[in-house]
């Protein structure tokens, strides 16, 4: 009963009486709300149903609202609320009907607003209403054993009650700006045979498995910011004695880590959570994790590339927290693998070499030392060797960019054909400078970065915006640091940040012929994805600036303006906003260009491979092919929101109908996912 109606009725009463009635009403409503909210497994549901039934006439609207809200917001108490509704229905048939109608309305609203989780909970509630004999349905009941079923106790009463028909549930029409969640592939690792003696793991298709998993996922969601609490709550799961808890927890955490397109939280959230779990349950958790790793390792061949990367990253991290102890003997057979086969990346080369048995020597990467072209005596024949050594002494004696440029200026330019032409850059200058500066800064990342920062002017002068020159920089860097993948990743990052090279140059370099042998190595993909992400962040930042500026320009007198810490910024002028928008457009053009380059290169190398296999009569489905197609899928997956923006251009220019079906398929799958 709304307070409004109360007022109307009290027209004839004194104001004091009205006030008293209003506060009484509010008190009663609050009490009802609290009673309903706090109901639990041990509550006296019959008693509560009677109390509610007594108030139904006066507070029906409120009770309906509270019950339907609880149904959706507390899915773990679903069966308790359905029982309550069932008992109420038995006492008051009309109330039951109105409740069913309310739930149907809630479902429709949720679907329209794309609130998928709410819709799911409403549907679940409906199905339990069937179990409770409140609704009629023609299919089977979901029989399961674990969840508390209070209505079983009340079966005799509930059976007598009259049932309702579920009103027709029609889906609302699709709107252009509706966003749908990606299909969620259910991640399963274990079946009941994997678990030792003890409580049985619910079957893969059982509703219990699903419900418990959902509850565990909700715990992770609730406590993901505090890993110690999260671990404690997971291990304290209310039904822990009825299920092999550690197995289900590991499955749930790994499911989130491997979720496509991306994990809900950053990867290290799950890594550190698993470590906490191992700390709290040292007798059982590590073994379960070990089992999980073995199962995953068995599936490496068919594992999605994104998941593989995450698995490798996580595994290295996990081991480094446990002194790299592992039962390596079981892994011996992998040393006979095809060299193209994915191998784990572990950055602690030294430790690994010590710890891992000899049979794994083939996996130990070469010592991460730089290769300096002008280092030894026989190098003095190389063009520019003298200048390189001169540069070293200039830099060591704290020389400036000007002095460096002077030294470089003396180098002849092989690109200059005669006195007329003025080549855009001098390749020998670039070779000498890049090699020398990286050699001088070889001691650590800090040294390398300091060197690059100090001589930015030199880079600007001899490289500039010329893409070929930029690619040459990357090539020389690769020559020097081929054995130190982490260094290369860091250097490319630094070059991008200081704008020595552009994202497009990086993409073109990675896909160039010289880099093809490196193509399957992890660091290549780290670089590509980092480059794309950097570009995306840049565009995102500019976008935000424009939106903020527009808001500041239009909504200047808003009440909820900036906090005390922010200074009052002047309103941006229309010209300023236009300039920002121009910058944004330019950045978006760069972003589109980057994706075009990457996809075009993929198409080229994949097509080449398919054609060559066709002419040679070989099967195209090699490790390399599967790997490369996987990497293509990964680009779509990881950057789907941004790629989507340009999907029209992509389908017109690149992913056209005449393309080989296997390659076109990757694009079509991506489009299907978002349609």
């Amino acid at each position, binding site marked *: 009963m709304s307070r409004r109606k109360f007022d109307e009725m009290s027209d004839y009463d004194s104001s004091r009486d009205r006030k008293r009635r209003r506060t009484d009403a509010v008190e009663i409503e609050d009490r009802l709300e609290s009673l309903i909210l706090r109901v639990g497994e041990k509550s006296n549901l019959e008693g509560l149903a009677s109390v509610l039934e007594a108030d139904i006439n006066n507070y029906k609207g409120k009770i309906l609202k509270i019950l339907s809200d609880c149904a959706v917001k507390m899915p773990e108490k679903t069966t308790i609320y359905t029982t309550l509704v069932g008992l109420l229905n038995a006492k008051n048939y009309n109330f039951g009907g109105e409740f069913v109608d309310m739930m149907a309305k809630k479902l429709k609203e949720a679907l329209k607003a794309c609130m998928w989780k709410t819709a799911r909970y409403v549907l679940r509630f409906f199905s339990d209403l069937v179990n409770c004999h409140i609704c009629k349905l023609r299919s089977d009941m979901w029989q399961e054993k674990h969840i508390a079923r209070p209505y079983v106790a009340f079966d005799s009463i509930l059976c007598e009650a009259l049932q309702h028909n579920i009103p027709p549930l029609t889906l609302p029409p699709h709107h252009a700006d509706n966003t749908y969640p990606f299909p969620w592939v259910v991640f399963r690792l274990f079946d009941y045979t994997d678990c030792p003696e003890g409580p049985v793991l619910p079957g893969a298709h059982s509703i219990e498995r699903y419900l418990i998993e959902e509850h565990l996922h909700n715990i992770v969601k609730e406590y993901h910011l505090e*890993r110690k609490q999260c671990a404690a709550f997971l291990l304290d799961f209310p039904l822990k004695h009825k299920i092999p808890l550690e197995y289900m927890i590991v499955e749930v955490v790994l499911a989130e880590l491997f979720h496509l397109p991306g994990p809900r939280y950053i990867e290290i959230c799950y890594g550190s959570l698993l470590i906490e779990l191992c700390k709290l349950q040292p007798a059982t958790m590590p073994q379960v994790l070990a089992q999980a790793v073995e199962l995953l390792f068995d599936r490496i061949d068919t594992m999605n590339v994104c998941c593989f990367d995450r698995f490798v990253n996580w595994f290295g991290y996990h081991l480094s927290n446990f002194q790299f102890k592992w039962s390596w003997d079981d892994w011996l057979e992998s040393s006979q693998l095809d060299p193209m086969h994915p191998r784990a990346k572990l950055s602690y080369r030294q430790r690994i070499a010590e710890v891992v048995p000899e049979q794994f020597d083939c996996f130990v990467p070469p010592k991460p030392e730089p290769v300096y072209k002008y280092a030894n005596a026989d190098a003095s024949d190389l063009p520019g060797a003298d200048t390189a050594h001169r540069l070293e002494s200039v830099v060591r004696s704290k020389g400036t960019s000007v002095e460096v440029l002077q030294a470089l200026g003396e180098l002849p330019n092989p690109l200059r054909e005669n006195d007329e032409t003025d080549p855009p850059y001098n390749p020998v200058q670039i070779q000498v400078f890049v090699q020398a500066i990286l050699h001088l800064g070889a001691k650590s990342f*800090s040294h390398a970065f300091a060197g690059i920062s100090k001589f930015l002017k030199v880079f600007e002068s001899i490289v500039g915006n010329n893409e070929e020159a930029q690619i040459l920089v990357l090539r020389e860097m690769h020559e020097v640091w081929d054995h130190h993948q982490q260094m290369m990743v860091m250097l490319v990052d630094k070059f991008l940040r200081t704008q020595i090279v552009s994202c497009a140059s990086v993409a073109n370099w990675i896909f160039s012929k010289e880099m093809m042998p490196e193509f399957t190595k992890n660091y290549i993909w780290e670089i590509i994805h980092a480059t794309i992400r950097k570009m995306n962040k840049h565009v995102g930042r500019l976008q935000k600036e424009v939106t903020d500026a527009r808001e500041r320009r239009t909504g200047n007198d808003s009440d909820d303006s900036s906090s005390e810490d922010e200074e009052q910024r002047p309103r941006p002028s229309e010209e300023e906003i236009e300039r920002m928008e121009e910058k944004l457009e330019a950045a978006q053009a760069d972003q589109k260009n980057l994706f075009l380059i990457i996809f075009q290169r993929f198409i080229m190398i994949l097509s080449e491979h398919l054609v060559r296999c066709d002419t040679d009569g070989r099967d195209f489905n090699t490790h390399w092919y599967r790997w490369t197609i996987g990497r293509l899928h990964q680009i779509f997956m990881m950057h789907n929101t941004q790629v989507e923006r340009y999907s029209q251009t992509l389908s017109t220019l690149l992913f056209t109908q005449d393309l080989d079906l296997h390659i076109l398929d990757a694009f079509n799958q991506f489009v299907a996912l978002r349609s």
Partner: protein
Amino acid sequence: MTASVDLSSYRDQHFKGSRTDQERLLRGTSTLYVGNLSFYTTEEQLYELFGRAGDVKRIVMGLDKFRKTPCGFCFVEYFSRDDSEMCMRYINGTRLDDRIVRTDWDAGFIEGRQYGRGKSGGQVRDEYRTDYDSGRGGYGKIVQQKILPKLP
């Protein structure tokens, strides 16, 4: 229960400014102090681990004031406060090079703060500790001085 991103009770006594200034900086900083490192932990290892929480802007190794060699701590600066909070949540209290590392908010790196403040040049804690820690030069400095003269 303390949240993992809360300020600890430590306040740098050498900080130039008021307590309120200091706390304001600590609540907005993206720089973290990292302690209990081994003397042999490399910058690479630090980038590898701390890079997992977000993009690292820079790492400054803590150095012995006289020897200019790593003395078991460093500063890690992220580009964003959010990323540094991830670090406090997920890296603080985990292992690096087999040692449990401790991360804490830092008001910001200033030239000079990369040096140990112990009398012997390293960190203060390495002056007074009495245990043997092979990753941090063995015994504490004072204990070492007591032992060494006794050798024939």
